[in-house]
Structures are given as structure tokens and as C-alpha cells.
């Protein structure tokens, strides 16, 4: 029996279907777990928190959901070394829950995904993520090549990593900066950052390497039909582009 992946659905989640579909297309044994079934969450082997606006992003994106009882199971699972992967709102929830960068206490976040800057608006834009750690540093990225470029869509109003200068140094020194924004050739520059994020941060990993939180959505550039760089003749229904990261996640569960 392959490892079971839960995709928790909070009130306000909106990216659960494509997240589930991509996990399955990458060979994962995944299912949605609705908030009314929170008690069943503990039985799963791994967790992928999808995008959306859980609890309306009240206070700060992810702040309320981090205290939802579904997160009790996720926090416990993370502590036991199970894989936890959050995308966009899922990433915001993991940060608010204190699971990434994971240098403080549970549910006492040390940093924030804050309002975008300089314009404090929602931004929907195609971006690329560049792997900024050794692939094996994080179990979820272990099958990616070094310096991997993962295409994705940024679609958020609160994605700018904000923390004190000391904490940002700690994030870098501790190897928590998992992904940075880059252009499609891998060059890291200001123009590639859609939201003013400190360090150009697009994703954070915890010390143990089993919890990964990324702001952009690889699952929206993950089949040839929605992959901007598809070539003529490619099967439009086959996975591509951002699917590489999801495949690496599923791969980690098999090893």
C-alpha cells in the first residue's frame, strides 16, 4: 500500500482540485480531507496544504487556519517527521503555524508572508522558482536537480517574506531559504520578484527538511496544456513544468 497523502480543505480553500489531480497524475495516493472530517487527518502519511483564502485571510493570511483543529494533526505529523508541503495559502498557514522556518515555537510565527510591495495588491503573474538549497537538504526536493528551475504562477496579495534583519540572517544561515524567484534562465534579479519578498524568497524549509512552504503555484503550470513553453507535438494532457516538484514529493514517499 503506497503512502496516503491528505489534501486538507479549510473553509475558503480554493485550489484543492488541481492539487489533488496533480498529485494523482504524479503517482501519489492522495485524497481531499474536508474540515468536517478533521479527526481522520492523523491517519495519513503526508500532507499537501493547497491554495485559497482559508478563513477569509482574516487578521493575516493563514493566521486563523493555523489554529484550526486540522492543524493539530498536521503539526503533530510534522513533528513526527512526516512530509508536509504547503502551496500559497498552504505556505502561509505553515508559516503562521510556526512550522517554517521552524526556528521558533509552534503557532508563534517568527516571520510573516505580508502584503505585497511596493503595490499592496493581489498579483497574478507567471514566475519561476529556483532551488536555493542542495536538493537533498529537503526530502520534498530531493529528486530535483541542483539549481532546479520550477515554473509556477504567483497569485497572492500577501506573499512578501518579512522578518527582522537578524532573523533573515538566521533563515539564510540555517539553510531555510529553499526557493528564490528567478527568471526562466535562472538569473536572480529584482524584476523576477513579484511581491517585494525579502531575500527574493519564494519558499522556506524547516531544519529537519520535512516541511516545505512555497508561495507560487506549480500546479497551475503542470500539464502541457497550461505550460507556457510546451513544444509542438507534446501531449497536452501529460504533466510537465511545475509537476517536477510534485513528482519529487511523491518520489520521497516511495523511498
Amino acid at each position, binding site marked *: 500500500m503506497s503512502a496516503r497523502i491528505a489534501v486538507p480543505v479549510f473553509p475558503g480553500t480554493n485550489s484543492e482540485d488541481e492539487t489533488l489531480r496533480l498529485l494523482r497524475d504524479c503517482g501519489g495516493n492522495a485524497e481531499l480531507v474536508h474540515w468536517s472530517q478533521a479527526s481522520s487527518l492523523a491517519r495519513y502519511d503526508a500532507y499537501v496544504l493547497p491554495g485559497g*483564502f482559508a478563513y477569509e485571510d482574516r487578521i493575516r493570511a493563514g493566521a486563523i487556519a493555523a489554529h484550526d483543529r486540522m492543524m493539530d494533526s498536521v503539526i503533530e505529523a510534522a513533528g513526527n517527521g512526516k512530509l508536509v508541503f504547503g502551496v500559497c495559502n498552504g505556505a502561509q498557514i505553515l508559516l503562521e503555524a510556526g512550522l517554517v522556518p521552524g526556528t521558533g515555537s509552534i503557532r508563534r510565527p517568527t516571520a510573516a508572508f505580508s502584503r505585497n510591495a511596493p503595490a499592496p495588491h*493581489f498579483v497574478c*503573474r507567471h514566475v519561476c522558482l529556483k532551488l536555493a538549497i542542495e536538493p537533498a537538504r529537503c526530502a520534498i526536493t530531493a529528486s530535483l536537480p541542483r539549481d532546479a528551475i520550477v515554473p509556477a504562477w504567483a*497569485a497572492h496579495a500577501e506573499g512578501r517574506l518579512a522578518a527582522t534583519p537578524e532573523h533573515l540572517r538566521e533563515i539564510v544561515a540555517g539553510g531555510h531559504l529553499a526557493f528564490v524567484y528567478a527568471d526562466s534562465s535562472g538569473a536572480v534579479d529584482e524584476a523576477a520578484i513579484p511581491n517585494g519578498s525579502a531575500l527574493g524568497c519564494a519558499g522556506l524549509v524547516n531544519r529537519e527538511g520535512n516541511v516545505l512552504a512555497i508561495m507560487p503555484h506549480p500546479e497551475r503550470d503542470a500539464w502541457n496544456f497550461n505550460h507556457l513553453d510546451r513544444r509542438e507535438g507534446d501531449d497536452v494532457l501529460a504533466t510537465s513544468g511545475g509537476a517536477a516538484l510534485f513528482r519529487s514529493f511523491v518520489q520521497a514517499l516511495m523511498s
Partner: protein
Amino acid sequence: MVNLRDEELQRIAQQLGRDPSVVELHAFDAAWSEHCSYKSSRRFLKNLPIGGSRVLLGPGEDAGILHLGTHDGERYAVVVAHESHNHPSQVVPFEGAATGIGGIVRDVLCMGAEVVAVADPLRFGRCDDVASHQSHVARAAVDGIGAYGNAIGVPNIAGDVYFEHGFDENCLVNVVALGIVNEKDVIHSYVPKGAEGWQIVLVGKATDPSGFGGASFSSLTLDARDAELNKGAVQVPDPFFKNVLMRASYRVFALLRERGIAAAFKDLGAGGIVGCSAEMTAHGGYGAQIELSTVNVAVEGMPPEVIAVGETQERMMWAAPPEFVPDLLRIYNEEFGLSEVAYNARAGVIGEVTAERRYVLRYREHVVMDVESEFLTGTINDELPYTEKIYHGASAQELPAVDIEGIFPRVLAHRDVCSREPLYRRYDSVVRGRTVLARGAADAGVLAPVPGSRLGVALAVAGNPRYGRIDPAYAAEQAVLEAMRRVVAVGAHPIGLTDCLNFGNPRKAEQYGEFVAAIEALARAATELDLPFVSGNVSLYNEAASGRAIPPSAIVACIGSIDDIAKVITPGFKAAGSALLWVGSRELVGGGSVLAELLGVKGTLPHIEYDAERAALAIVRDAIARGVMRSCRVVADGGMLTAVARLAFDALLAGRKIGAEIDFGNPLCETGGFVCEVTGDSGMDVTGTLQIGATIDASELVVNGTRFDVERLYETWSRPLAQLYP
């Protein structure tokens, strides 16, 4: 405040044989408002073609339905609805525009469909001063649309925007929603035969005093002095709650499908509980009994007329067989815990369907309304006088010779031509992972709506107010043509249309005449092109207290089907050495163009010849079918050269430094058509096309010998709107 006219009040009293109760007054006020009754438009709307082999459901219910295609032996259809939320958006732009999206989404949802896309044709006042009130409206309306659509997770894949002084006091916020449904699972907006004794279930937010008098308010001329007063008529959006309501409803659909049970489902829009329950039952040939005190309310002490016709958002209504109702209630109230998501929200039984065709409303067991269902919901007509006139003659005015080097950058930077990206970046265009061509990527948005299938659907909108100012009928025909061309340009087969008719005051013969002429023109264009209108909406009284009406605005959406999304035409030039073809009329006149505006001349409007239009569409579709079309763009605002430039911009953004060298009479004329990049050895029949040049291996445009750098043109084109939408 009730807006019924004296003769209407008399008619009600006569029919009832008594004076109407307060609740009845408000119920008729909503039901007989222009907004709900189409009383001054119905007799003309019936001239629109609405049938065809693709049509599963034409106008009449909350949305129209068109056959899309077959996948795995199952037949799929797209559900489409098109509405306006103009008045509310002018008064309270964020909430007004947001509830526009909220309402149109419910119209599609209630047909049993999964909502897969929205689009937003917008018309704002001039925003040259970004601190002006018009600019505030333009920003807040866009933020409202984004806030709502983004949160419910429905991608915004199409839309357009124009900025005109004619909209300074009356913005237009039109909204379109698309859904996907297995044809077996369509749910209707009215009860079927055998529904006697079915229970009526209200589901959603607790009814509150917001949106009281909304339908009636939408049917009035706006007076800035009343703005504060009218704010109470605007509803309050709650996309967070809607997100949950939609997902809970999808669960109900699945259970109905599993059990093979029929039910009726309808959006609560204008006219609130009364409007919805009366139409739902009367159109099935039944009556209804409702007890208002069973309605979940947000505040105690609301008078019964407010509960009855208030337009609190995020509510819907089911009529279902009693044996299914416990499951229905369980899904909303327990599985999805609506009351935990919003105060006192729930699904609850409020009445039942009766065989006697009377609509009876009780409040704490006292009858507060008792009328013949047909009388409330039946057809009423206003035979108003209108002026017939010829809007533009044949008076030709030649365009002066232009200095292309000086004027082309000005055309690209013009408010109607420059990049819309600063605006649509605020919209999530890719949520749900089914977007093939995102908002702004091409002439139409494209989705793969059925996961695992190659089926695609394209959506585009059009309606050029520069034409509307000159000739409302001509503008309407061009709107049909442009929307259709846009869908064809991405490789889709046009299958249907929707319209929203935004006009002035029907009680002024000249403004009413514009409306009548535009409908006739829509009917002509759709008939000539053999496309049905399956859904639509009329928004009249778009007139400010100053008496100034908006430019007549027939806004059209076109839906296209795609058998295989692999054949979608992707953005931008693909290779150097391709032939560039112009497909369309050669009549290069400039009436209504951006060029004419910049030169300060009138110009002549290009003629519309349907034989030529059909031929052009056939050529483009043939080139796509043969696989020789590398890229394609419609010619619209900014003319043919703008279309060529945008193909070069898209290539540049994709890292392909490909430009074009073209030779063409006046490349800034906006005579409609297509610019096509085809393979050099396409073997296609080029009769009816004109080779205007070729793509080149450099990021340059060479136009009649004048050289432009593509990157610099891109800077010019991409920046202006960032002033308004930073």
C-alpha cells in the same frame, strides 16, 4: 420608496379587488421593475435568434446552455450567463462590482454546473487624473471583481475596458460567467411536473436589511445627490461564504446525480425570496405557500416586506421532493457547517409548492400576500414611443496622410489600446489549473473545462464605445463580429453569444430609439452569422441626473468550442520567414478609430459585408485546421499595426526575437479582420487574403520603410495603465 407608476398601481388594485398590502406593493415593485420584467425591452428581444443545434437551453432561465462536445462517451455543455451591475458599481464600486460577480456565478451554479470562468467587460469614465472620482470608481470596481473572483477560485479569463467621458457619471460593470455540466445533470430554475408538495428550501446567509429595493433602484436614473440614500440598495458581498456555498452545492449535485432525483435550484437575485420562489413555482405551473417567520434572519425586528423582497447576497433556493430534503439540509448545515462560516447562515425549509396557482405569503401565520402567481410573474409590457433615425450617413471623409513614426507610439499608448495587464494582474486567471490561455494572453481566454479531456472552451467579449457614440446599431453589429473573430483567432469554433444591452432612459424617445436600433442590429448580425443568443440582460436608465446618457453599449460575449486543446493558437510570432496575411475587408477608412480621434477627424465607418465576413472567418479556420497558422491576432482598437506589434510583443516575452516587415496602405485603420502568421509553404488557398509582409529574424517592425524597435514599442504600450493601477 416604491417606484410603481399610477397606472400600474391601479392595475394591481383592480386585479386584487382591494388595495395591495405593503408586502404586495414591494413585491410588485420588484417584479414589475424594468430590471426584472424587461417591460420595455421584451417585445424587441424576441427578434434575437435563440435556436440552433448547439442550444440546449436558450434565454428564459438563469443561464443559457450550449453543447460543447463529447468526452469518454459523456456529453458536456457550457452554461453561460451575462449581466450588468452598473448602478451599484457607480454608487459603491467595490461592493457593487463584487456582488456583480457573486450574482452571475450563482446564475451559472444553479443550473447544476461547476463554475469555471468569469469575464468582465468594463466601461469607466476618463481617468486621466488618477485622483479623480472616476479613477476611484475604476480602481475600486476592479478590486471588487478581483476580491470576489479570486476568493471563490474562479479564474477571470476574458474582459475588456474602455475609458470615455460618456461613462463619467455611469460606469458599466458587465459580468459573464461560464460553467461546465454533464448534459444529463442540468438542473432547471423551475419545478417540473409532479412537484406538488415539494418543499422549498432557502439556503445561504441570514437575510438582512441590505439590498432592499435593489431591483427597483437599478431601474432608475442615477442622481448623485441621492448617492448616500441609494447605498442601502446595494448588497453586501461575501466571497468567503460563497466559496463554501458553491462547494456544498457541488456536493448536493453529486448526491442528486447518484440517486437520480430531480429538483429545482435558483439564485436569489432581484426581488429576493418572493421573486425567486414565485418564478420557480409559477413557471412550472404551480403556486407556493411561504412562511416568512421561518426565514433565518441576521437581525430581529425586520418588517416582513424586507424579509420578502430584500436582496441579501449569497442565498439560493431549492425546491425538492420531501424525501431528499433531510440530506439536502445535512450537507449544508452539518457537512459544510454553514452556520460556522457566517452568522445564522443555514439551509432551512420555508414553504412548499402548491397545486393551486396562487402565491401566498404568511408572516407569523398572518397572510401578508395572496395573489395569482401568473399575475405577479407574468408578462407586462410598456409600449413606449421611440425615435427611428439613421445614425450615420455615407458622407465620406478621407483621413489625412499620417506620419507613422510619430503617431504609432501615440496609438499604442492610447487609453483604449495600451496594455491592460496592470488591471488584470489583480485577477486570478489560472486558479483551478484548467487555464490554457490566461487573461490577456490572446484575443480570447481558453480553458480545458473537463479534467482529463482535450475539450476546450474559448470566451471573448466586445463592444466598442467609439462606434457606439457614432451609431448604436453599427456598434452592436461590430460587437458581434469582433467577439466572434476573437474566438476564431485562438482556434475555436463559435457556438453561441450572450449580450448585455446597456442604454439610457427608455422614457426618452431618442435614447429608447438607440436601444431598439441596437437590438435589431444584434439580430441581423447573429442571423447572418448563424449564431444564437442564449443568455442576456438589459440595463436601462444609464443616464445621470444631468440628463446625459452613456454611449449606447451593446456588449457581446462569444463562446467557442475546441475539440482538441492541442490545436489552440498560442501567442506571438513563432518563426522568422513566415508569411503575414491580412484577412478582412480592404476598405481602409478610419471612422471610429483611435487614429481618427488622435487626428481629430471623423472618418468614415467601414461597411459591414456579411459575405466577406463569413469568407474571412472560413479562411482563418481553414488555415488553423490545416496546421499552417503559426499565430493570429484580430484587428481591433489600434488597427492592423497594433495587432502586428502585439504578435511581436508576445514573441519577445517568450524569448523569441522575431519582428515583421510589412507594407500596407494605412496600417492604423481599424477595419475588422485578422493578421495571420502562416508557414511560408502553407499551400493554403490565399484567395481573399493579402500578403502584407513577412516575419523577420530581428526584434523590429519595419512598416512601409519606417523602422521601430519592438522593445521600445513594448515600453510605450505596456506602461500607461500602471498610473491608474499601480
